[in-house]
């Protein structure tokens, strides 16, 4: 682990430049003060009770020096920080737009090409992206450490950020603004694809729908989806109640709904709960789950159900 995460966007290097300069200046002053402090504490330690000390009340030259030099340094740091900030806040004209919606506790991405993904953001290497962001409920914050970008997203208003991903790979998206019980599970991935791979993805062959994945047994595919699409933020596998009912022993369970009716968790009920989650809420839970219509294909829903069936 290096002291700073990998620099995977055009902005990262610039931010690291400022960070490095401030770090060096800070280390210099810290070492200076600590060294002087320790040196004085040792050299001038009290040896006898009746030691005589000089009456020094100040020294204007020194005081002016150590007021002016830090002031100049601080102003320079401000300017450096501002110049990079300006860059970070000014998207280029040719950036492609991706709309981000944050909701307790998942991310949805709507692409300029009409695609829609959940918790996984696909971007093309070396192509500038502008994220237009909005929240559905409370504050969230879109944060990719490797890109050095972060922006709070708010209900009722749009905010933006931009970056050029420079490295192919998969990086974490964190929610950095506290948003409630599932805050720490509101994780996403940004997947930077090479231009060729991106074209394949864009043509509609989602990576997960590709031959390699769809050849997985349904239950394994379901487990993969469970983690990727954020089901794990609310549904545990060990019987503990997080936000929604646990998946453990869910299949075939019977119980009472908020509206007083009873239910049996069979295939039909589970499909309906994924596509129309607000319709039938199990007693004691909040209607907070979003619809996965258009996000999960029928095959994928089948896979998730197959996965749930394995959890006795």
């Amino acid at each position, binding site marked *: 682990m290096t002291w700073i995460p990998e620099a995977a966007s055009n902005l990262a290097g610039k931010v690291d430049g400022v960070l490095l300069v401030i770090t060096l200046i800070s280390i210099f002053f810290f070492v200076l003060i600590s060294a002087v402090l320790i040196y004085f504490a040792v050299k001038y330690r009290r040896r006898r009770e009746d030691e005589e000390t000089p009456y020094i009340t100040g020294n204007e030259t020194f005081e002016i020096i150590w007021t002016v030099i830090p002031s100049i340094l601080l102003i320079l740091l401000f300017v450096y920080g501002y110049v990079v900030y300006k860059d970070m806040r000014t998207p280029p004209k040719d950036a492609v737009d991706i709309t981000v919606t944050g909701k307790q506790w998942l991310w949805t991405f709507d692409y300029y090409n009409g695609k829609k993904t959940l918790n996984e953001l696909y971007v093309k290497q070396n192509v500038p992206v502008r994220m237009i962001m909005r929240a559905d409920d409370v504050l969230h914050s879109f944060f990719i450490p490797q890109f050095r970008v972060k922006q709070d997203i708010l209900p009722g*208003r*749009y*905010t*933006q950020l931009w970056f050029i991903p420079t490295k192919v790979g998969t990086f974490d998206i964190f929610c950095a603004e506290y948003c409630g019980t599932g805050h720490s599970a509101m994780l996403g991935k940004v997947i930077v694809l090479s231009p060729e791979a991106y074209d394949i993805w864009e043509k509609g062959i989602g990576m997960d729908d590709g031959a390699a994945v769809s050849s997985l047994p349904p239950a394994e595919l379901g487990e993969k989806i469970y983690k990727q699409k954020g089901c794990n933020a609310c549904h545990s596998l060990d019987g503990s109640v997080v936000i929604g009912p646990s998946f453990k022993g869910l299949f075939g369970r019977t119980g009472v709904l908020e509206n007083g009716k009873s239910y049996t968790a069979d295939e039909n009920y589970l499909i309906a709960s994924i596509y129309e989650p607000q319709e039938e809420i199990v007693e004691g839970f909040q209607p907070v789950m979003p619809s996965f219509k258009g996000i999960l294909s029928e095959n994928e829903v089948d896979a998730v159900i197959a996965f749930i069936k394995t959890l006795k």
Partner: protein
Amino acid sequence: MSEHTHSQEKHITSYKTYFIVWVALMVLTFVTVYISYLDFGQLNIVIAMVVASIKAGAVALFFMHLKFEDSITWLFALFPIALLFLLIGMTILDTFTRIFPI
């Protein structure tokens, strides 16, 4: 107890001064209500605030005897108002210079 105590000679304001201030306040109240029926566009709020500030100034200076207070009282009377302007000014600046107009 302290070096400040010697100069506590109170200033007593006369009834006459109060009446004059009161008449002025009533006139200004009438003026501000009257003007509110006319339409000066954006100027309305400016006029209303100027009139209100004159009234508030009169109350503070004469009814509250601020005119006769020492500098430390003036400081603590004016500093909160400056802070209030700071709060209003900077929140407005923020609200109306955001990228996406609301």
